[in-house]
C-alpha cells in the first residue's frame, strides 16, 4: 500500500469513515488470517484472534496517530493477542513441549495448511513451520511469508533489529535442518537450501 494512500486511510478511519474501514479490511484481512493461522496452528483460534484484531482497530480508530502505519499496527495487535492467548491457555511452546515429553504417545505438530498443501514439499514446509517454537515461527512468518521488513518485524515482536536478525538466522537454520532431515528420509529438498543467507 502506498504511503500516501495509507495516510489518507488513517485520516478517514480517525473520522469514522466506514468505507475506509472496508478498504483496510480488504487489504489486510487475508494476510492477517494467514499469519494467525500459521502462528496458532488452529483455524478457530486464528479466526477469534482475527476478529479481536479488527475490533481493536475500530475501538482505537479515533486515537490512531496521523502517521500510523496500518500493517505493522495490525500485525502487532494480532501478534500480541496470540501471546495473550498462549499465556491464558498456558500453551507456551516450552511448557507444552515439556508436557508433551511426558505424554506416553507421540504428538505431532500439524498445521491447518498441511491438508490443503498442493505439493509434498509444501506439506513438509508447513509441517516444519508448525513444529518450530513460536518465537522462531513468528519471525519467519512476518519476514519471509508476510513480507514485512526487518525493522517492522522487530517492532512487532518487541525486540531490537539485531535480535530479530539473530532469531531469523536461527529460525532459518532450524527450518533448513528439519527439511534436510525430511529429505534424507526420502523426499529431496529444494536445491541450495542448506546454505541460505539471511535476507
Amino acid at each position: 500500500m502506498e504511503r500516501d494512500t495509507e495516510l489518507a486511510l488513517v485520516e478517514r478511519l480517525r473520522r469514522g469513515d466506514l468505507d475506509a474501514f472496508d478498504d483496510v479490511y480488504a487489504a489486510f484481512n487475508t494476510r492477517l488470517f494467514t499469519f494467525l493461522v500459521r502462528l496458532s496452528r488452529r483455524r478457530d483460534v486464528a479466526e477469534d484472534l482475527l476478529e479481536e484484531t479488527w475490533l481493536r482497530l475500530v475501538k482505537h480508530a479515533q486515537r490512531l496517530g496521523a502517521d500510523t502505519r496500518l500493517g505493522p499496527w495490525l500485525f502487532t495487535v494480532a501478534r500480541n493477542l496470540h501471546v495473550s492467548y498462549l499465556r491464558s491457555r498456558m500453551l507456551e511452546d516450552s511448557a507444552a513441549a515439556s508436557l508433551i515429553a511426558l505424554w506416553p504417545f507421540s504428538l505431532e505438530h500439524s498445521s491447518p495448511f498441511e491438508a490443503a498443501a498442493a505439493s509434498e514439499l509444501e506439506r513438509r514446509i508447513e509441517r516444519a513451520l508448525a513444529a518450530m517454537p513460536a518465537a522462531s515461527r513468528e519471525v519467519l512468518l512476518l519476514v519471509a511469508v508476510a513480507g514485512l521488513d526487518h525493522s517492522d518485524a522487530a517492532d512487532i515482536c518487541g525486540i531490537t533489529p539485531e535480535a530479530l536478525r539473530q532469531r531469523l538466522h536461527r529460525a532459518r537454520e532450524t527450518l533448513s535442518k528439519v527439511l534436510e532431515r525430511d529429505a534424507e528420509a526420502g523426499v529431496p529438498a529444494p536445491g541450495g537450501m542448506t546454505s541460505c543467507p539471511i535476507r
Partner: protein
Amino acid sequence: MSDPLTRLLAELPLGEPDAARAERTRMGCRALLARQASRASASRGPSSGRRSVQVWQLLIGVLGVAYLTEVIVQALSVYGPP
C-alpha cells in the same frame, strides 16, 4: 528474497478465513465504528448547546440589570428628594 528457502516461504499459499464469519466481523466492526462516530458528533453537539445557553443567561442578566436600574431611577424620581 532470492534463496530457495525464502522463495518457498514467500510462495506459501494464503489462508482464507470462513467467508460468513469474515462478513459478520466486517459488518460488526462497521456498526461499531458508526456508533462511535455518531457518539463523537453527539458529544461535540452539547458543547455548542452549552455556548448558546451561556449567551442567553448573559442576555437575561443584562436585561434584568437594566430593568432594575430603570425601576430604581423611576422610584427615585417619584419618592426621591425634590
